[in-house]
């Protein structure tokens, strides 16, 4: 198991390195001058040249890349094109909010998707199964900002149960913090759970026909044992795989949800950077997001290997 883990980790490092090269090339291969574009009509040639020199953008590309990547290795994300300030402290400041939202969202995703898919698969053709299929399709067609907007309209505007957005650090007031997390996380949960539910349903249906489940009944095991130890435990394996796969959608969706609910996370920082055309910031943040994505995926994969011993082979 440990060897397996080390192997997986060793694959991740060159992947991220290669991604950094690609990202860097992408940013610098785009035609036109982003700085001129950013400054707009005020951008006199002198001003552009001055800014270039200040941010070190007049150096050769490989020097710039080396500077960036060696900084990254030490946790230095570089400086903002606009303000010239260090990016790292700003990101660190925002990471708790982002992680809190990610985890609560995953919680809701599983809370909705797993039971719905499992019950629909176990009682195939029952009312719950018949509702699930169209509901999942509708859910898959709903943009996350639309789900969020509807939640705001119902829970905040109509019922006035929750504020329309905002963030309080967990350490400051756990209850209020979670109260504010509820709606954005629920929006992401509703957004992600249909796909999960579909997969769990398909797996559960297939599991019931597996010989080891039939044999469990042959052994006279109680139906509770079969449901929990045979069906559910095996159905959880694909849940992990799906969550790993869905992480991209989650992180993308989170960017939008953070915007919608005024949630001061990394996603919002990214959008702010994009709107201001601060490409140095965007470039570093994308790599941060990709790293989070790859690391969480790695974690999911290791958890998967732990839960399903066959994967380790």
């Amino acid at each position, binding site marked *: 198991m440990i060897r397996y883990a080390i192997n997986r980790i060793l694959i991740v490092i060159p992947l991220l390195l290669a991604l950094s090269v690609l990202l860097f090339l992408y940013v610098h291969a785009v035609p036109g001058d982003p700085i001129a574009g950013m400054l707009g009509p005020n951008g006199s040639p002198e001003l552009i040249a001055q800014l270039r020199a200040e941010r070190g953008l007049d150096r050769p590309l490989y020097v710039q890349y080396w500077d960036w990547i060696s900084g990254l290795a030490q946790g230095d994300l570089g400086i903002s094109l606009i303000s010239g300030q260090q990016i790292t402290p700003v990101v660190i400041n925002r990471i708790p909010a982002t992680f809190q939202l990610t985890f609560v969202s995953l919680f809701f995703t599983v809370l909705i998707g797993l039971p719905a898919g499992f019950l629909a698969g176990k009682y195939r053709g029952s009312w719950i199964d018949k509702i699930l299929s169209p509901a999942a399709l509708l859910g898959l067609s709903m943009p996350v900002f639309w789900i969020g907007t509807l939640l*705001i309209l119902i829970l905040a505007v109509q019922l006035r149960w929750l504020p329309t957005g905002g963030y309080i650090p967990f350490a400051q007031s756990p209850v209020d913090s979670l109260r504010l997390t509820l709606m954005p996380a629920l929006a992401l949960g509703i957004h992600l759970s249909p796909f999960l539910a579909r997969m769990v349903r398909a797996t559960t249906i297939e599991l019931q026909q597996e010989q080891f489940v039939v044999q469990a009944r042959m052994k006279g095991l109680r139906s509770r044992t079969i449901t929990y130890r045979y069906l559910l435990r095996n159905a959880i394996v694909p849940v992990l795989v799906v969550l790993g796969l869905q992480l991209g959608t989650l992180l993308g969706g989170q960017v939008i949800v953070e915007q919608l609910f005024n949630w001061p996370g990394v996603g919002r920082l990214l959008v702010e950077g994009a709107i201001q055309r601060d490409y140095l910031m965007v470039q570093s943040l994308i790599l941060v997001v990709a790293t989070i994505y790859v690391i969480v995926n790695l974690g999911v994969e290791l958890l998967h290997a732990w839960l399903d011993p066959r994967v380790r082979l």
Partner: protein
Amino acid sequence: MNVVDTVNSMKPRFGRRTMSVPAGGVRAITLRAIIGHKRALLGAILTAVVVLMAIVSVFWTPFDPMAFDTGEPFTPPDFAHPMGTDVYGRDILSRIMAGSQVSLMVAAAAVAGALVMGTVIGLVAGYIGGVLDLAVTRVVDILLAVPGLVFALGIVALLGPSAQSVTIALSVVYTWQFARIVRSVVVSVRSRSYVEAARGLDASPLSIMVKDILPSVVPILIVQVTTALAWGILDEASLGFLGLGVQPPDPSWGSLLIEGRQYLYDAPWLPLGAGTMVVIAVLGVNLLGDGLREIVDPRAGRSTS
């Protein structure tokens, strides 16, 4: 089949949704097959409604979508303004109709660009193979680590917020999905007898690619195009919602939703129309895509839907 195999077989290899090449080849998509397929038909109808609305809006909208004070600001939905008015008294329905042009145009143009670039990359990589193929596969694998929307956002950041930037950004993101799919089909048909035969006849690589290989890619591409269109509409609206798409005062579904977010308590009806339109459009294209997928490969739909 054990659970691990099952799950692995469901794992999309790239992006949100892709499809594999069915072992027995693919079936042709005919109008009759679509009409005979309940969900595909419903999807086609919903899609047609949205497209029709966009076309009508070119020639006629109830009010000028840009005109102020067509009624009192924040008029709730009534007979004259079926979806109410916004803060400047502009007619929401007219703006939704005009916005549908932008949404559909951006999605269609992005997908068209990705289709052309992706098909060329996939064809060449898959047909020539070797180092080139390896490079393309690796690039796709690496880009997989960046969520599509975040990737697009990064490109828009470079180009500056506008409808054109969104189109280019989405086009670049989707290109790799198309390349991946086309490549996998090409690799699977490359060694089939008719391609071998064409090669034996000393046909030029270009003519083999276009005449012998491309036709077997087409049905799968049609399905992928519908799927990509659904995501295009969704992503355009998302980027618009983030303020990176069409800039005010021009209307788009995404920007109408931002305005809705600003005046939630004053005019809760503001975002309803635009949001519903996005859902109808995406649902329609999704249904059509799912239907086509099942028509092309009857086995594909059964396991997941």
